[in-house]
């Protein structure tokens, strides 16, 4: 699980162009949206594409993302349970 969390942090930084940020800057329980990393709606769509492309998870209801993308912890837990690749 720790390796997956590290991978998620690296991918999020790269995919969402979080310049000047390193994986060490993101705590596992940091809020990804709102007052946390400050991600926006386009970032949420990028995360949905990332789940599909990297882990074979298709979110049919974007509203699911609200809980899945709450933090690195919630993302890693969801991916571990649902990944197909």
């Amino acid at each position, binding site marked *: 699980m720790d390796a997956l969390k590290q991978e998620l942090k690296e991918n999020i930084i790269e*995919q*969402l*162009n*979080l*310049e000047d940020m390193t994986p060490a800057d993101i705590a596992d329980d940091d809020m990804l949206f709102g007052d946390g990393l*400050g991600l*926006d709606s*386009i*970032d949420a*769509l*990028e995360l949905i*594409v990332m789940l*599909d*492309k990297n882990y074979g998870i298709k979110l049919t209801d974007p509203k699911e993302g609200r809980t899945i993308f709450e933090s690195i912890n919630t993302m890693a837990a969801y991916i571990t349970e649902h990944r197909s690749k």
Partner: protein
Amino acid sequence: MKNNYYISSYCHIKNNSVWLDGNDVYQDSSETFSEFIKNLYRAENTKYAKFFKMDNLSKLAFMAADILLKNENLNTSTDNDIALVFSNKAASLDTDRKHQTSIQDKLDYYPSPAVFVYTLPNICLGEISIKYKLFSENSFFIFDSFNADHLFNYSNSLLDLNKSEAVLSGWVDFDDTNYEAFLYLVSKTGDTIHNKQNIITLYNG
């Protein structure tokens, strides 16, 4: 047409260099546009959370506008009445190509939403408007080459009809490794008269 207007300031970015009102204000030896514009953003101490998420065209337009407008001492706690009239040749072709690449292979079909949102050239106008609270007219025209005549007439029309207090106008083009931004502010005060010949002279300067 009243034509009592002036070019109060202008900014030119090309070939790793930046000029403001004819003065060389920044240059470096970056090997890529990506590196150059990032260095420029940091050198100017520009603060805009979404900057690194923009496409190349928007980064170029944003920096040219920012360097010019930051000297205008605008109050960004209220709306600013500056219209935007931009133009270029390549539209959003640089980003269009990136999007096309991502949807080329039906077996590896993962278009990026963050890329797709920039597949229109006028998106850069929105980024500038957000930073400087420009709740005003904006237009983006596509021409084969710099069209001073059209920019002059359109800007004058906006001012004559009281559609705005000033107009930020010009050319912002990005394609492959070629880029150029030339923006100028048309106001009701200044030293350089706003006419077609002066626009061309400053652009070629």
